[in-house]
């Protein structure tokens, strides 16, 4: 097994050694269920056989809770406790460390994401069949969700590799992801005055919400895919540089 996979495996499993992961998983499922069925009238009021609401709320749960919690420890905690020295002086390259940690964390996030498949399948296939479900938007919605998870996780990893402590990492990741999510609303608010200029456009361009909304409706735009992929790659690259920086400190 390559060192990268070994690190990823360890990282993934370490989540289950602390009660934190279980708490986060339960909490996020509970919150998602609550939002899905209750918020703004809930699923039943909408009266459509669609799980678009799921894709709308799941990224929020990921942004505000799951990703910050899962990624905060990644590098910050290892640096603080000194285990980073132990890890890096094994025959692993810095990129093995960054990628291993990324995939380890993404693994857990994706387990959560895929667990939400229970909603579309449970309600529209078996045991309940509430109506005919168009599988197209479901598939594209999940594609969007996975791309989003990768981008968010890489942002969390980057923040963790720059932050002094995991608490700091948690809050910064939280705020960055929240900002990227609400850029959309901010842009609408700014341009509502009519004198938006270029700024709202930029916000809109970067908004994770705007980027994802196409996927929810079954629109797969290569520009959106590229956007998430490049955010991911860029963050991983900067995280790699941040890890290398220790050499010259």
């Amino acid at each position: 097994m390559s060192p990268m996979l070994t690190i990823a495996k360890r990282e993934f499993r370490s989540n289950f050694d602390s009660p934190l992961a279980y708490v986060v998983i339960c909490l996020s499922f509970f919150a998602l269920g609550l939002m899905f069925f209750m918020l703004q009238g809930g699923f039943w009021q909408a009266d459509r056989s669609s799980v678009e609401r799921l894709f709308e709320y799941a990224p929020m749960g990921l942004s505000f809770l799951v990703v910050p919690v899962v990624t905060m420890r990644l590098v910050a905690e290892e640096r603080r406790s000194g285990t980073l020295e132990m890890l890096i002086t094994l025959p692993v390259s810095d990129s093995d460390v960054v990628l291993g940690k990324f995939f380890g964390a993404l693994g857990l996030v994706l387990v959560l994401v895929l667990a939400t498949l229970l909603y579309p399948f449970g309600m529209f296939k078996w045991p309940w069949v509430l109506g005919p479900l168009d599988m197209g938007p479901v598939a594209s919605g999940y594609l969007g969700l996975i791309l989003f998870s990768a981008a968010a996780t890489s942002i969390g990893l980057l923040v963790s590799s720059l932050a002094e402590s995991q608490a700091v990492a948690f809050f910064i990741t939280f705020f960055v992801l929240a900002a990227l999510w609400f850029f959309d609303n901010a842009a609408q608010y700014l341009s509502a005055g009519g004198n938006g200029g270029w700024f709202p456009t930029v916000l809109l361009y970067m908004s994770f919400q705007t980027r994802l909304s196409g996927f929810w409706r079954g629109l797969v735009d290569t520009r959106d895919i590229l956007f998430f992929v490049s955010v991911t790659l860029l963050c991983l690259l900067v995280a790699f540089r941040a890890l290398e920086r220790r050499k010259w400190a």
Partner: protein
Amino acid sequence: MATDVMIEASGLTKRFGGVRALDKVSFEVRRGEVVGFLGPNGAGKSTTMRILTCFISPTTGSAKVSGHDVFDSPLEVRRAIGYLPQRAPLYTDMSVYDYLRFVAEIRGLDESAFKSRLKKVVEVCGLAQSLGKDIGTLSHGYRQRVGLGQALIHDPPILILDEPTSDLDPNEKAEVLRYIKQIGKDRTILLSTHNLAEVEEACARAIIVSKGRVVADGALDDIRGKTGRVRYVVAIDEKRAEAGNSAPSAEAARTALERIDGARSVKELPTDESLHKFELIGPQNSDLRADIFRLVVAKGWTLLELRRDAQSLDAVFRDLTRGDEKLDRGAGWKASEPEDDEDDDDSTSDEDDDDDSDEASDNHSSARKA
């Protein structure tokens, strides 16, 4: 490998911001050598080891480990090395077995190799009863054993150990030193420690650093001989004397001893027995014991103890790293004091003794400050 030099540091300099942690550190370690890496706190031992294991880069200078440059091929370097960082930072959420397995997996050991090495490592590090435990629940000493275990798991040709025995109990310490000595015959081991007795036991050679510079590098015997002094301890009964002679006062005994040819510095040592105890420094390659004995007999006193030590490594260490020590204890204040000159002569005195005097002058200086 064409050359036998396994670790080669040349001109390593490392700056942390304004602090110069290393200043042109150069040394070589060959195959089959167990080298003690000594120095006071903050001398730069860990920094050097971190450079050798490619964790940090030197500001200038270069190093080769097992023939590979630490800058160009860190992976090859790390493959050849077993490294135990200071204080053995480990993943506290893993069990000992899982941790060793994780390290073995990254090092690419296959199942059977892992099994057989694990057996050996468990035996040497005394981990048999802790394999299933979480590292977070282990005592510090056991964590250090696990750290040592992970450094040994792949049976590396080069071992770099940063204070490997600092938290171990005496039994385990002895076992680890025995093992280091045993495997050191055909491997290369660089270990840092503050325990000089350990160095005397396990190492044939020592490198002493102070304030980021190498101040001594060589066989232990050479280093011991470096200051060229021999120390004598003399104890004289303070009550009894031969008929016709008076029992010696401390002052009388001291002046008499000072008159011995070659005796350089005579200092009274504290004791709670009814005797006068002195420490006497003599030149190297001479033996003053006969003179001391004859003097005591001639005076009609009673000699209770007479001992001649070659300069201990401990004393040499203190001598060589004196600058560090002084700075740490507020040398700026002390330097103006007249006794300062004497200090150098006292350098071979007992540890407690010296500390006392240092503390005393410390109090002085703080009093002056206030």
